[in-house]
């Protein structure tokens, strides 16, 4: 792999940029691999990367039905934060956030991590109590957050209206080390590093069946023929149910559409991420100047990657009261992603009823922020059979009633 550096840019500038090679190879699948990861999104590629980097497992294929990073990795609002209430969640999300800090250097690929700060507005008395509790919990977990006053909110976000008639801003939970990153670059950076370790990223290769015998996985059937493997990782977000059905077990997961939109680009006006969970909307400004806006998920099963007008209206209507400045902006793009929701709104990183099949899913509406931590933990689980980060996220927790209940705890829109 040619390293990217200022010298590489200078060298290529002198020869009309004709020496840049492809960032990753596109090989045909081999007959057999030590491990196969289904899904070349952020989580799948990160899993493969840490399998190679931390555990020396490099005979790995990553199979992707569409194109690399073309699912939810390309369909999110790029927010990175770790201000969760429950210890298990805080541990894995904080691991992810800390890995984001060094990711560009680690991958030699600029993922444009911008620790600009994430603010969750408290707009009811209940939210004030909830966020103060979260800030205390975060202090114990070693996650740096604080509860800030409305005046501090206004000074950090001058365009905000803190005196809204229905939902005035009463304070906020502030994580100054949260932020955003370039979502595509995260997938591309991991893909380049995986390819460089000799892993095969096979795009346009749909898994159509999973072979197992005597409770042990043997391989997969794909649109490019059968491939054998010793270990299989299913990291497919919204299509978890479909893959689990192929392997013959059921999952406590339902696929629903989550949508987001961006406005036309405007001059820089907001340099933090603001989430308003009571009115159900969140917003940040991209480097291009677009206001990136996200809202709630549909309440019904949906695999269409489409949004619906009334959800856009709901989200924008809520945000306009808090940000009057955006009321005349035009919508530029609008998209939907298929997210996998679990009952307790926490992910599943687990062994499955079939031996040597591992599953990483259930990130629901908040997967992007977790990519490196999820990959790190999933790789450890696949390589060693256990990981301290994934222990509490096992499938058994539903049977045992040991939920990691973030649906009420995180205070975030689900």
């Amino acid at each position, binding site marked *: 792999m040619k390293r990217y550096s200022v010298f590489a840019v200078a060298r290529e500038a002198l020869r009309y940029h004709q020496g840049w090679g492809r960032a990753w190879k596109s090989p045909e699948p081999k007959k057999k691999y030590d491990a196969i990861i289904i899904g070349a999104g952020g989580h799948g590629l990160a899993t493969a990367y840490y399998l190679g980097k931390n555990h020396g497992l490099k005979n790995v294929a990553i199979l992707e039905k569409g194109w690399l990073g073309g699912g939810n990795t390309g369909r999110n609002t790029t927010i990175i934060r770790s201000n969760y209430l429950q210890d298990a969640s805080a541990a894995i999300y904080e691991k992810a956030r800390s890995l984001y800090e060094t990711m560009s250097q680690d991958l030699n690929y600029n993922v444009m991590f911008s620790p600009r700060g994430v603010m969750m507005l408290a707009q009811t008395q209940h939210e004030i109590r909830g966020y103060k509790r979260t800030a205390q919990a975060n202090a114990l977990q070693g996650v740096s957050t604080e509860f800030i006053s409305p005046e501090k909110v206004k000074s950090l976000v001058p365009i905000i209206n803190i005196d809204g008639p229905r939902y005035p801003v009463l304070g906020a939970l502030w994580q100054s080390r949260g932020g955003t990153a370039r979502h595509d670059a995260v997938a591309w950076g991991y893909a380049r590093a995986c390819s460089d370790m000799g892993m095969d990223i096979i795009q346009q290769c749909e898994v159509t069946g999973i072979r197992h015998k005597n409770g042990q996985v043997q391989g997969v059937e794909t649109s490019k023929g059968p491939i054998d493997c010793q270990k299989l990782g299913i990291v497919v977000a919204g*299509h*978890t*149910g*479909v893959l689990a*059905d192929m392997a013959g077990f*059921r*999952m*406590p*997961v*339902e*696929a629903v559409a989550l949508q987001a939109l961006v406005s036309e680009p405007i001059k820089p006006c907001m340099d933090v991420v603001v989430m308003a969970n009571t009115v159900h909307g969140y917003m940040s400004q991209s480097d291009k100047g677009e206001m990136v806006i996200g809202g709630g998920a*549909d*309440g*019904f*099963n*949906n*695999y*269409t990657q*489409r949004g*619906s*007008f*009334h959800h856009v209206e709901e989200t924008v209507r809520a945000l306009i009261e808090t940000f009057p400045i955006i009321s005349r902006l035009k919508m530029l793009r609008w998209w939907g992603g298929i997210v996998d929701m*679990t*009952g307790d709104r926490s992910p599943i990183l687990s062994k499955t009823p079939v031996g040597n099949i591992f599953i990483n899913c259930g990130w629901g509406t908040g997967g992007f922020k977790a990519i490196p931590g999820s990959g790190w933990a999933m790789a450890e689980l696949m390589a060693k059979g256990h990981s301290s980060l994934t222990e509490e996220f096992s499938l058994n927790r*539903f*049977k045992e009633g040991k939920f990691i209940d973030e649906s009420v705890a995180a205070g975030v829109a689900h």
Partner: protein
Amino acid sequence: MLVFKCPYCGIEADETELSPGGEAHLKRFGPGSSDEELEGYLFNRENPKGVHFERWRHVYGCGKWFHAARCTATLEVFGTYSAQTFGPPKEIIDIIKSKRPGWKWRNLG
């Protein structure tokens, strides 16, 4: 936007007039059942990419719960039917089979 015909008041209702209620025809388990049965009833879901049977409530209309058959891959609605049943009626199954030849799901089709 999804449009369902409420089988009770007969109105063609938009999605905004309705409230989704999740998977239909769950077999309920209570005290005395095994851990697996309880887990399956409470958490595990069919989640198919295709034909799905589900519950909806005509919340801003007559207020009644009803059942619907819908495709989660295309959002096509095959039909709605009464809530007072343990499985989809034959006419709904026939509509699905005519539109999705070869469709099979668990013990249906």
